[in-house]
């Protein structure tokens, strides 16, 4: 039963990931559609970050706010992705000990 469930989950996860590669690649799309698809990464990032980043610790919005501010501050100062990740973890660990 569990294996059947895993197989079903695998199938419905893979198909949406795979279909566009078969449907669209190699085809010349309308420039407006192209523009929209090129916008997707940045729109997705906005939606992935907000509002979830404020909700990472249940019942403690401030924890999320500190993490978000730390990540944005580090990134704005020009830190690379790994430094932003490790820096935000370090700052939140410090916050946990201090508060």
């Amino acid at each position: 039963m569990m294996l059947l469930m895993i197989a079903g989950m695998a199938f419905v996860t893979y198909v949406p990931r795979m279909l566009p590669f078969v449907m669209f690649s190699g085809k010349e799309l309308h420039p407006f559609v192209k523009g929209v698809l090129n916008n997707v990464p940045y729109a997705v990032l906005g939606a992935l970050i907000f509002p979830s980043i404020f909700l990472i610790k249940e019942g403690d919005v401030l924890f999320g706010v500190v993490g978000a501010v730390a990540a944005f501050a580090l990134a704005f100062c020009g830190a690379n992705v790994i430094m932003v990740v490790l820096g935000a973890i370090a700052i939140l660990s410090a916050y946990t000990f201090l508060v």
Partner: protein
Amino acid sequence: MEATYSVKKTSDFRLGLQAGLSIAIGYMPVALTFGLLARTTGLTFAETVLMSLFVYAGAAQYISLSLIAVGTGVMEIVLTTLIVNIRHFLMSASLTERLEEHQLYKKLMTAFGVTDETFSVISTQTGKVRTAFAAGVMVISYGSWVVFSGVGHLMGDIMPGFLQVSMSIALYAMFVGLLVPSMKKSVKVTYLAAVAAAVNSLLIFYTDLSGGWSIVASTLVSSLMVEWVWHMKRRNPRG
């Protein structure tokens, strides 16, 4: 020629592994916790690893555990998985614009590795993206997900609590680290992210829409709206 070609290929793959390292770090606590929860839900070690190996979708796997715990049927779990993962359709569609790959088996393999995180890292690269680079990003991310799912099941609560909680920021911090440099370079990026963030927040707090569909809806609304505004500006620069 042959030799230069293969050298170039390995280095693209290597660059991909490097770029994917932040995902591997971010997946670690999430996968460890998944393994731990799977164990307490009653999945065997093999089932836990198989799920990560074949499904490879964090949110869907977590949701399936909570559904198994309350005794939900297989069909409902599979349907929920589809709904949660439909957002990857949009990401793959966007990736086909960026990745030049004509061999079908490579396309089919690349498609398997599309997650929120690999997509974000690959698609925020500047210029055309080589498939070998994408493969590098995906291999290190997938490896981390599968291995740490298994480790989580075997070892249970191995990480100190404070670090586990602090590390929950990792993937979000990575998204921020990917977004901000592009925001600095382009106003359009800032608008795209801000509109999507606003719409997604409204949907999450004020509607019953699932997280997966909220992301699909807010991404589409933002991408279409901002593109339309930019399109109008080009046609009528003074307006």
